[in-house]
């Protein structure tokens, strides 16, 4: 896909995407146009409208790896008639193109690519092979095909949220609520809305995938995807590296955290305004000197949703929710690791600590996906309340239901916004690509 412009476009300065940064040739390779039909149509429409020039479509010069000619992972080696692995791979590579890792890096997103003079500028953050790679990883990790992913995503680190989400979705579909089509879980098991005839298709997998995903499907992918990413920044970075190629409108971390202040109670909410990145999974791609800013649209939607669900407003809301810095660490046993980390936490004014939020926000910033974090305090290790098995489980169940409801309401509020507004300009660099 290529667009050629000879002048700077005079555009509405509120826009954050849909235009190229300057005159010249801009191009990208794309994949799975069936999956990205709505997205591509919108991006191309904006380019044509904003620049008044046509968009050229043709074959790229990037060979399609044989693995990516199939929509799902297939075991290519096992499909061949010889059993000698070394012979198989040699033959395969002699005849077909195989994935080229050099064509899959994130140099465009990270701003580290260097173009020889006269080379076309990039039109999108991700080229075809990078997208193909992630589409396969998404199925591998979540147990669901990329077709089912929705544009509003919740990441969680706690199984209770999955159970609560599945139950809420099934109830809404059984009631035939308008604007919802289906609920999809691992194995692509799909339960359709009663309004569309109901029924369930598919078989759940024998073993759950590592990060199972659940999708409340709405027309034009405007529903909600919830992924249980498990524990740790490595998982958080991994899944967001892949979900990013789907170009969602927002992603949100809803999980449990340690409260760091004595005035917090178990079950209180924490709205992250900033992050202390002690997780170290994105330090190279996004140096620690780069602040990951709070996004006003997300913060307001989350705060309003907390107010709506709890019935608290204004100064009263502060009894239940606190805004401030969230520290994310890579050492789960930070609380028994000596005084140094406690001192750093105090210096940073952090109010809560977890292991995933900073990586999710930082990768949202890195890949220009609007991000937000609302956590629930589940322990206060600095104040003698440590996390123990079976602790206050009834209390947690109640809180999890409310917390999830807040997350879903916040996303409903975001859906009402213009996507040009939601995709904040503050996520965009100097010479930005045109695609959202």
């Amino acid at each position, binding site marked *: 896909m290529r667009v050629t412009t000879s002048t700077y476009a005079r555009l509405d300065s509120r826009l954050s995407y849909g235009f190229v940064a300057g005159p010249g040739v801009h191009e990208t390779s794309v994949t799975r146009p069936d999956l990205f039909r709505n997205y591509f149509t919108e991006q191309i429409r904006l380019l044509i409208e904003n620049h008044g020039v046509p968009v050229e479509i043709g074959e790229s010069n990037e060979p*399609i790896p044989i693995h990516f*000619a199939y929509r799902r992972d297939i075991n290519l080696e096992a499909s061949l008639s010889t059993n000698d692995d070394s012979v198989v791979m040699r033959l395969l590579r002699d*005849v077909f193109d195989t994935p080229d890792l050099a064509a899959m890096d994130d140099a465009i997103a990270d701003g580290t690519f260097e173009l020889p003079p006269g080379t076309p500028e990039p039109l999108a953050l991700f080229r075809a092979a990078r997208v193909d790679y992630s589409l396969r990883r998404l199925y591998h990790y979540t147990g669901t095909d990329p077709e089912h992913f929705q544009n509003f995503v919740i990441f969680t680190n706690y199984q209770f949220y999955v159970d609560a989400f599945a139950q809420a979705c099934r109830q809404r579909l059984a009631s035939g609520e308008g604007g919802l089509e289906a609920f999809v879980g691992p194995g692509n098991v799909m339960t359709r809305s009663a309004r569309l005839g109901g029924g369930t298709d598919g078989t759940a997998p024998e073993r759950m995938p590592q990060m199972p995903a659940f999708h409340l499907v709405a027309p034009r992918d405007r529903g909600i995807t919830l992924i249980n990413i498990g524990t740790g920044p490595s998982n958080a970075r991994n899944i967001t590296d892949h979900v990013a190629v789907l170009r969602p409108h927002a992603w949100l971390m809803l999980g449990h955290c340690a409260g760091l202040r004595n005035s917090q109670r178990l079950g209180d909410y924490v709205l992250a305004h900033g992050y202390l990145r002690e997780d170290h999974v994105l330090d190279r791609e996004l140096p620690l000197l780069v602040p990951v800013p709070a996004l006003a649209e997300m913060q307001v939607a989350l705060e309003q949703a907390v107010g709506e669900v709890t019935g608290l407003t204004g100064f009263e809301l502060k009894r239940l929710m606190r805004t401030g810095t969230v520290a994310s660490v890579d050492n789960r046993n930070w609380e028994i690791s000596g005084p140094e980390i406690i001192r750093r936490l105090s210096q940073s004014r952090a109010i809560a600590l977890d292991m995933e939020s900073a990586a999710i926000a930082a990768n949202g910033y890195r890949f220009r996906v609007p991000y937000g974090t609302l956590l629930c305090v589940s322990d206060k290790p600095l104040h003698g309340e440590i996390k123990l098995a079976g602790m206050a489980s009834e209390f947690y169940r109640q809180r999890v239901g409310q917390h999830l409801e807040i997350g879903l309401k916040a996303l409903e509020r975001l859906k009402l916004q213009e996507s040009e507004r939601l995709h904040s300009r503050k996520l965009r660099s100097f010479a930005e690509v045109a695609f959202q």
Partner: protein
Amino acid sequence: MTPETPPAIATEAFTDAAAAVGRLEEIYERNTKFLRDRFEAYAHGGALTARVRAF
């Protein structure tokens, strides 16, 4: 050795976004099917005389 590729499709300019995406789908479907067909022939013991490539 010249690779075996599907016939080239000329690059074309579009002023209609839906038509542009329609062309993307045509190219993608044709070229991935070309690779799948040849891989399946190869997997079943068919002899391929040249490298197979599509874009």
